[in-house]
């Protein structure tokens, strides 16, 4: 046997093993992470319809998006409204639910029920709600009619479509955030609460002065992941409204998808995707900075 034998068992020493174990992940990182990012950065400076070779046009795509494409700016605004809506409603609601859930009995039952939407595929969620909301025979408007309220046309009315989409998104993600929060609550040392109670602190004060500060790492995690998810989300909107009516629910990620695979403006779509990525980075950094000030050093 020569010393350079290619016997795999011999090559796998304590020094080389970690690198070999990481080969699949590193290869994947090259082909399906670094390469796509580089390719779409390049494409964002070109004009490309996938049929003929890309043509270099410098920063024209970015200029177009910000100066001559009012719809792009409208979708950015829609994304902001959607994100503020789902985070502003979804996070406090799931925190409240986690608070009562973690002190209740029959937790397995509650958990099963609240998990149903999050394990359901988004197409089914979209259509299930389409049936509930679709006017005039949707079950929600029938119920509203029973108590004497004329329900709106929800998905067909530009003034209510975004509200409906936000409601459905919150419904879909409520269980997941509730479980995250209750895991965070479970990790808090119960003796701290006991000590405060013995000292005579009321439940509200215990919540504000003890529970909330100790829950900060979980809150930070849920906030950041919720915001990133919301900014880059479009699957539910694609199923529920396709961005309509009159673009009232057209968010940037959905707009980019249509730009790429319907209009075949792949260069401009790549530029828009990078703009959205920068937005996500800035918002995440801002959140980290603001919330870290409160003493969250876990991240």
């Amino acid at each position, binding site marked *: 046997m020569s010393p350079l034998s290619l016997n795999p068992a011999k090559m796998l020493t304590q020094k080389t093993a970690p690198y070999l174990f990481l080969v699949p992940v590193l290869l994947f990182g090259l082909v399906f992470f670094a390469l796509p990012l580089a390719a*779409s950065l390049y494409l964002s400076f070109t004009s490309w319809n996938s049929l003929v070779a890309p043509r270099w046009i410098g920063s024209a795509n970015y200029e177009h998006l910000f100066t001559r494409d009012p719809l792009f700016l409208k979708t950015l605004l829609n994304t902001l409204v959607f994100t503020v809506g789902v985070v502003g409603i979804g996070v406090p609601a799931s925190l409240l639910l986690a608070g009562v859930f973690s002190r*209740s009995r029959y937790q397995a039952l509650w958990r099963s029920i609240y998990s149903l939407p999050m394990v359901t595929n988004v197409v089914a969620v979209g259509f299930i709600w389409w049936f509930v909301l679709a006017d005039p025979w949707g079950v929600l408007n029938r119920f509203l009619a029973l108590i004497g309220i004329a329900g709106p046309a929800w998905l067909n009315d530009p003034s209510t479509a975004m509200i409906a989409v936000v409601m459905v998104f919150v419904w879909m993600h*409520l269980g997941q955030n509730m479980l995250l929060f209750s895991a965070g609550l479970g990790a808090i040392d119960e003796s701290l609460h006991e000590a405060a109670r013995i000292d005579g602190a009321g439940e509200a004060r215990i919540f504000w002065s003890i529970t909330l500060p100790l829950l900060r790492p979980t809150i930070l995690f849920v906030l950041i992941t919720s915001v990133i998810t919301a900014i880059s989300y479009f699957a539910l909107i694609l199923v529920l409204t396709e961005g309509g009516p009159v673009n009232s629910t057209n968010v940037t990620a959905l707009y980019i998808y249509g730009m790429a695979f319907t209009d075949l403006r792949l260069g401009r779509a790549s530029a828009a995707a990078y703009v959205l990525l920068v937005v996500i980075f800035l918002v995440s950094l801002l959140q980290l900075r603001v919330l870290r000030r409160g003493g969250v050093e876990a991240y």
Partner: protein
Amino acid sequence: MRMLSHETKAARTDLPKPTDATNAGATTAHPRGVRKWAVWTFKYGILSLGAVIMILPFADMLIGALRTPAERLARPPVYWPTIPQWHNFIRAFTDLPMLAWLTNSVIVTGSITAVQLATSALAGFALAKYRFRGRNLILRFVLVAQIFPFFLFIIPMFFILRYWPFAGGNDWLGQGGTGLLDSYLALILPFAVSWYGVFLMRQFMMTVPDELLDAARIDGASEFGLFWRIALPLVRPGMVTLGLLVWIYHWNEVIWTMTVTRAAPELQTVTVGIQLLRSEFFDERNQSLQQAALAVSVIPVIVLFLCLQRFYVRGLSMGSLKG
């Protein structure tokens, strides 16, 4: 005893007022029993209200799946079906390519789950149990890479698969054919690794004791043997957790699969199948059949989840608490 409590009270007079105020309120205005009852009502009131909101849309779908077309077309439509049309669920299989969709879903989801478990476990083991140059760099990359949203990759990945050399009639420059687009690989390869999975498995692998690995090394076990015979059996709960998370995520995936299979209907999974019925959904005569199809697409995942939910909960908390 009395002395002691008096002393404590005296020593604490410098404490802020709310302490005393809430205490007094609790004991005088609301006798203990009433207060307890109010908290109980509030707690289970909120939980029950939320639970009803969670379940009602599903119930609406199941009731809808049992109607006849005539009941749906009536004005106003009949809400409660007079005779439940259970055969709508059978029609979802006979009138739609449901069996082919489900088969594709199982093939794609099963492959992604198996491959991701393998790549995540190996990488997680390397990152948790070895010290080597570049480890911290890779670890940091795995954390940061999770932030990059998937929509950024849809366009370039589509064309990487399209121009894949020597596949689907392509030459070495990736020209001339369709690349990997018309194959299951197009649905599986882009998800062969998940950064979240690598991170999660690293967390689980950290729990494997170093002494156990060193002892096995002295006994002459190979490095792969350490992974396969010692680490893997110890993190089996972690593998179930990750497997469940991946299975649910990819069974429900629709955007990528829809993008890739638009030109290849024979690869469509169940979620894409029901999405492509969209235009027909608005025809009221078909709605019962389609609500039945929705139910069929949802029920397998719900059953799987209910059986294994304790693993899911564990994964959620492991993913959020960084070690």
